[in-house]
């Protein structure tokens, strides 16, 4: 039996940011339960790509199984909807609605939405560009799809769908965007701009995305196995939380690798995050790197292995199982920890660290205290 101090959610300072709910639309399926079971089982998600996607640089993909936009969201307003928006809306339904489609989570006039993305819906944007270049006249484009091309569309559509009138923001930061979004929500809530937040990140798979990633490969890197999905959280202040807290966000630190030394940048960022959280590296119970399939991702894993206890890094199955989910990955990493923790009674009160690093040099780390209660 562990001797780690267990901090009940009730004893947290009232302004502590806590995660009180989450939903995942992932390569494991469209529900949180499918994600948690998939992660705990360590199941692979790669499948042979649908022929309808056309020629791809890699034969396998980690797409969300059975993701039929109109089947999941109905025919109204979905005919021209991009996949990125649809993934977000299905995830938001999973977070706020019960199985019968009724509202299960109370929101108010100051409930915000912040969503992390990488480049939005590349497919939608490139399709419009292609139409403009190849059709008879440059303005002969599918005008109905233009609104979906705006970077903030998914976050806006989510707010409209659920009548959320608080701050509405999109943070474009690649693999670190999930942590940037969480930090954004933390900051605005601490300033009294919002009472609770839907926060998360999203990535869509498309053939054009696969080719973009392929052309950005460094020599020697494997051809990318791309994933997709959307991970969303409900975050509140501990003192005002209306649902039991699953984890407290103790700290989020960000940085930029300006010396072209991602290992040092991740180490420094993780140390700062742990210091800010008031915990030591050997207290970390679970750590999840983003596992980007490139030099930055390898350096990230090395940095965490050198800094943290070995069993912390093996507690949660590796994120490679989901493919490279890019902007969605940081949210999925936190959810993987929560999914493992909810099945492990020894997790309560323990510390988790999630890190992310992008090939462009952005680095971020979050330190959480797991608070899930077990019967």
């Amino acid at each position, binding site marked *: 039996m562990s001797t780690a101090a267990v901090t009940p959610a009730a004893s947290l300072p009232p302004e502590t940011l806590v995660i009180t709910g989450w939903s995942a639309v992932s390569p494991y399926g469209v529900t949180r339960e499918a994600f948690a079971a998939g992660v705990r089982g360590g199941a692979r998600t790669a499948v042979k790509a649908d022929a309808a996607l056309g020629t791809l640089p890699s034969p396998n993909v980690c797409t969300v199984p059975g993701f039929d936009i109109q089947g999941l969201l109905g025919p109204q*307003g979905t005919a021209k909807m991009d996949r990125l928006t649809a993934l977000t809306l299905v995830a938001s339904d999973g977070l706020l609605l019960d199985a019968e489609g009724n509202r299960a989570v109370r929101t108010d006039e100051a409930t915000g939405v912040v969503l992390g993305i990488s480049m939005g819906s590349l497919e939608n944007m490139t399709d419009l560009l292609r139409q403009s270049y190849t059709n008879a006249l440059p303005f002969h484009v599918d005008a*109905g799809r233009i609104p979906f091309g705006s970077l903030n569309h998914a976050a806006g559509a989510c707010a409209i769908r659920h009548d959320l009138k608080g701050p509405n923001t999109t943070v474009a930061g690649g693999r670190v965007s999930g942590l940037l979004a969480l930090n954004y929500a933390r900051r605005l809530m601490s300033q009294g701009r919002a009472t609770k937040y839907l926060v998360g990140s999203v990535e869509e798979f498309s053939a054009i995305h696969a080719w973009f990633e392929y052309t950005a490969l460094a020599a020697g890197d494997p051809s990318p196995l791309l994933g997709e999905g959307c991970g969303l959280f409900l975050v509140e202040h501990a003192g005002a939380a209306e649902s039991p807290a699953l984890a407290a966000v103790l700290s989020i630190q960000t940085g930029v690798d300006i010396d072209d030394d991602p290992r040092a940048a991740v180490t420094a960022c993780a140390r700062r995050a742990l210091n800010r959280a008031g915990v030591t590296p050997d207290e970390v119970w679970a750590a999840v790197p983003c596992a980007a399939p490139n030099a930055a991702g390898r350096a990230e894993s090395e940095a965490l292995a050198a800094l943290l206890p070995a069993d912390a890094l093996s507690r949660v199955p590796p994120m490679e199982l989901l493919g490279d989910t890019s902007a969605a990955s940081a949210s999925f990493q936190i959810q993987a920890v929560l999914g493992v923790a909810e099945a492990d009674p020894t997790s309560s009160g323990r510390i988790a660290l999630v890190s992310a690093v992008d090939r462009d040099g952005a680095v971020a780390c979050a330190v959480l205290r797991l608070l899930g209660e077990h019967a």
Partner: protein
Amino acid sequence: MTTVVPERLTRIREIIAENIDVHIEFSDSTLFIDELGADSLKLIDVLSALEMEYSIVIDMDELPKMVNVETTYQVTAAAAGW
């Protein structure tokens, strides 16, 4: 009055239904805004889709005339020189 070509009318009806996002039966005289709940943005989508389909240019001043399938066909036919 332009002679209506049935195949073109069918295709124009499809374009209208897709762009106004209609999932119910409607006639050639059903009003887009009053009866199908369309708004001006949806009507621009229709105009734009018709331009793309037939490689034509429809003057924006014609938009107020496009109130139902019948008048939309006439506006399209005039722009296309059918």
